[in-house]
């Protein structure tokens, strides 16, 4: 019974991590049809920014609640700046080009940003351990749950609900949906598609940085963390359907629970199970769980 409970809770925590990483990626793909490899850099910059700024905050003995707020603000600021630089300074120049070209451009930007990280913060790793201690623990039998993990699950859930609500029930969300459905028709009806692109990319960058900031207390913030997450994020987005926030949520949940079950029951297949799930979904529904198959435009 305790093992079953552990599988569920561990799966939720891993799913929260995956969703925070993947939601910005899927949003950008949905609107702009760009497979944004730079998303890994947004995650890494968010983690580094939070580790430095929030670490200093906690070291000075300020209240913990302010530290969590600062974590979000730092991620927003980093996402805003990086998102604007990449979209306005780089992607704007390749809109309309072949999708492969755009992917390669984002990959090049990702590699450059990896070096920028080393130039700014050096090769040493950084730790933001204070928020983990500040949130306490909850005992369930022999299992000790981290308060931070519980908060992470709640935060990811709220983010999913907020994103879904914003897309379906706000004017801006409906404009996004129109652009997702058909950017040419949206432009013909007077929607400023260029502005929608910029805002969407910046929001996606903010979400990527937020994922990094949220994970910073749990990891050693070090070179290469962006590489690791981008592969997982792609797997989650592929399962859920490229461009679907609900799909990213469900994809993260499926991968999280399957992985947790594997670790507890058959640890030898822990890595295999993530990509087996992805392969199975793609065989049965190549467009992903939450994306409808669309006729190709000629």
């Amino acid at each position, binding site marked *: 019974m305790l093992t079953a409970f552990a599988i569920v809770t561990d799966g939720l925590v891993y799913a929260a991590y995956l969703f925070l990483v993947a939601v910005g990626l899927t949003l950008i793909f949905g609107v702009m049809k760009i497979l944004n490899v730079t998303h890994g850099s947004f995650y890494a910059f968010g983690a580094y920014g939070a580790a430095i700024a929030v670490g200093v905050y906690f070291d000075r003995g300020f209240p913990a609640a302010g530290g969590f707020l600062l974590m979000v603000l730092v991620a927003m600021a980093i996402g805003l700046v990086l998102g604007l630089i990449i979209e306005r300074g780089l992607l704007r120049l390749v809109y309309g080009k072949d999708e492969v070209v755009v992917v390669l451009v984002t990959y090049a930007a990702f590699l450059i940003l990896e070096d920028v990280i080393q130039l700014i913060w050096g090769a*040493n790793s950084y730790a933001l351990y204070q928020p*983990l201690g500040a949130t306490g623990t909850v005992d369930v039998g022999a299992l000790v749950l981290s308060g931070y993990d519980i908060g992470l699950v709640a935060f990811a859930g709220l983010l999913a609900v907020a994103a879904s609500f914003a897309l379906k029930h706000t004017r801006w969300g409906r404009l996004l949906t129109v652009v997702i459905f058909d950017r040419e028709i949206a432009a013909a009806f007077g929607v400023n598609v260029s502005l929608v692109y910029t805002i969407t990319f910046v929001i996606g960058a903010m979400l990527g940085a937020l994922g990094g900031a949220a994970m910073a207390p749990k990891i050693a913030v070090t070179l*290469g963390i962006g590489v690791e997450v981008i592969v997982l994020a792609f797997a989650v987005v592929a399962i859920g359907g490229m461009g679907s926030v609900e799909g990213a949520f469900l994809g993260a949940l499926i991968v999280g629970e399957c992985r947790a079950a594997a*670790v507890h029951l058959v640890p030898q297949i822990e890595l295999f199970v993530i990509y087996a799930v992805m392969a199975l979904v793609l065989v049965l529904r190549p467009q992903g769980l939450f994306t409808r198959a669309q006729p190709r435009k000629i």
Partner: protein
Amino acid sequence: MRHQIRGHAHSPTLLLAVALSFGLPLMAEGGAQAEEPAPVKIGFVTFLTGPAAAPFGIPDHNAAEILVEALNAGTVPAPYHQVGLGGARIDPKFIDETGSAADVVTQFRNLVERDHVDVVVGYVSSGNCLAIAPVAEELKELTVLDICGTTRVFEEKPRHYVFRVNPHATMDNVAAAKYVLDKFKDISIYSGINQNYAWGQDSWRDFRLTMKDLDPKATVDKELFPKLFAGEYGAEISTLLTSNAQFIHSSFYDGDLEAFMYQAAARELPQRIPFVLTAGETSLYRLGPKLADGAIIGARGPHSFFAHDSALNTWFQKVYFDRFHEQPVYPSYDFAQSLFGLKTAWEKAQAKKGGSRPTTEEVIAAFEGISFPTPSTTVQMALGNGHQGISDMAIGTYKFNKAQNKPEIVDIVRYPAECVNPPVGVDSIAWLEGGMKGAKCD
């Protein structure tokens, strides 16, 4: 024409002018060449970027920087006081180890075939060491593997051009098992969490086999192999929390070790079940009080906290601290051992040749089976037909000194090299499976 030249040559003014404009500089150059032999080009390969840079690559590179500088200046204490290698200055070329095994092999080929280095020293990843060894043999390039610990390099196939001064992982795990059984009485069940690649799998195998030899009644509860750089360990921590293990073995290092320990500490795992961290020393300064007291710590040799007192160690720690304002950790010591091993072999071969620069084959012949002092201990190139080093080993228990705000290792136990390494001619697995026959522990 010849006459004209001879005629000019007899003019004292012209002779002086020619001598001043061409002859003297040439003589000076020739004189310098006679005094200073051509440098020895060495390719140094380590992680300069990526997740392994902070715990391994940077300490490794830092040690290379100060040691090459000091050797070229001739300021290293005896017996390494001679300039460079046998009087020839070292010309270093640093290469990043980050990338796939295919990338690493390509960089190795570039070093040998394009840059024409005399020797390659390096490699942290066990996977990369396994990839490089056959290529070094193919290219006939003298290669001194540095930090990687997999036993397979010399046990799968004999090597001629490849050496590894630093002992392999068997020693770490045999010593850890002995220490654990000495410290915790009545061990009946234990678990392990190790990275899912050559290093983690070999470490766990050696530890498990040693435990089977020394305490056959002890059984394994959980065996976890998360992928390298996994980042999130919630499920693994829950699995270990709900296990019955009396201790947990791990050969984690770098960011993986730190991330795992942050997450484990937040869920009180180290407070409930003690850890045995065979490569934990690299992260002690960064983890500090976040690592619970009582963890059993190894440093892949008697390095750092475990180093024997010697003038060489005092000098090494001082120059390292003066330059980088931090203590050298075991990757720094590993590099020092590798370079001092190469230097010893080079100078032995050179002495045998009457002071002339030795060839690769002559250095190899001199390298096989030698014994030499290092900052932390003495290394004997005993295994793998004299290509694989062994040394004594030390293990201890972690304690954070709050008063001085620094990590400490207490209850240090030392094991002789012949106690924790297989005898000559015996593979580590066969030795462990055969009950560690021939171990000399007294």
